[in-house]
């Protein structure tokens, strides 16, 4: 049974305008792509934030699949590098999902972001556009509990299937919830025997794990 976890929000911190990023590359300057997106999806494209010479496009969660398909088919962004989730954990904003795309032929990189409510942490899956999104979305679901609607196989990636929590959420304690992850028993159930030929004498030790009976799978 899962406990209800308590937490406090973190204060909002504005990004500080620093000196221009001397390491910024021309590959991340995607102003023309952003203009194409604004023309094609006037309602779905939100803020475009430029930080350290890199542009981040905020996209309406409901249209993320269309935007990705447009970028793949019209703008040549055929390579999905990464999908991941962020727990912003402020009072006004909770989750974010980011998508890093690369146009290999054109030498361009861009980043899309989707903001999600805490109450409805769900976003359409882009697996239909980029099959490579499969495991990234599963990891994001496992760690943050963000549901990807339309994902073919939305299982946990790292944690056991019956684990009750999402460990990268900020309210999850760093050392975990005691008892939420079972360990194997330290000693096997049942009596121990000093007889090295116990099986030959008809005694079977009680297994400490569940395994099929001998030959069961061969029938």
């Amino acid at each position, binding site marked *: 049974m899962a406990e209800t976890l308590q937490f406090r929000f973190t204060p909002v911190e504005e990004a500080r305008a620093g000196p221009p990023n001397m390491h910024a590359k021309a590959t991340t300057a995607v102003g023309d792509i952003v203009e194409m997106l604004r023309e094609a999806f006037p309602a779905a494209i939100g803020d475009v934030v430029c930080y350290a010479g890199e542009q981040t496009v905020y996209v309406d969660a409901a249209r993320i699949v269309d935007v990705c398909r447009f970028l793949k088919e019209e703008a040549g962004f055929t390579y999905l590098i990464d999908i991941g989730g962020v727990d912003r954990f402020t009072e006004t904003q909770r989750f974010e999902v980011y998508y890093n795309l690369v146009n290999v032929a054109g030498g361009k990189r861009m980043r899309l972001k989707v903001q999600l409510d805490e109450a409805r942490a769900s976003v359409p899956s882009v697996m239909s556009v980029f099959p490579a999104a499969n495991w990234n979305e599963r990891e994001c679901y496992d760690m943050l509990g963000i549901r990807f609607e339309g994902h073919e196989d939305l299982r946990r990636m790292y944690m056991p299937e019956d684990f009750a929590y999402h460990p990268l959420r900020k309210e*999850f304690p760093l050392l975990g919830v005691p008892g939420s992850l079972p360990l*194997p028993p330290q000693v096997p159930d049942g009596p121990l025997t000093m007889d090295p030929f116990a099986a030959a004498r008809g005694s079977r030790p009680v297994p*400490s794990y569940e395994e099929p009976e001998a030959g069961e799978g061969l029938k």
Partner: protein
Amino acid sequence: MDANTGYLTTTVDTVVNWARSNSLMPMPMGLACCAIEMMAFAGPKYDVARFGSEAMRFSPRQADLMIVAGWCSYKMAHAIRRVWDQMADPKWCIAMGACASSGGMHRCYGVVQGIDNFLPVDVYVPGCPPRPEAVIHALMDIQEKIRNTYTIGQDYARGPERPAPEPMEPTVLSGAGTAVVTPEVLGAVAGG
């Protein structure tokens, strides 16, 4: 009997323990970077073949020493326990490195804080990762432990009423010989 034939008398325990301690076949449970040092331990430079343990056995049925090298997640713990249960008795276990011994620097929700939470560990090796010499030392400790066990005699000849042997005293292997470890001995080793 012809005096020139040559014979010696001993006990079954001595012979069996001698054979067991000099033919330990490790099960390399390499989970992280400690496994690289474990390979060096088995390789030609440090050459654990000198101790009869060069045959790493990847089947638990053929192994009698499990070296858990690296941090162990809660999910992996069940697989390790399963392999351990499949190993035939008698068997021994080395927790190699800080992570296997105590969780090490991985003080977080997903890592078991020491494999002794689910395995009976015989020797803990400190270090991050331990040098191959340290693992050889751990192997020698296991060998010493095997040579000090009374198994066959207790099981068959004398029965369970035979008193258990005295527990081993920790000893210093260098400098002070086999003296029992006390602060005075340690001081003598450090000073001398």
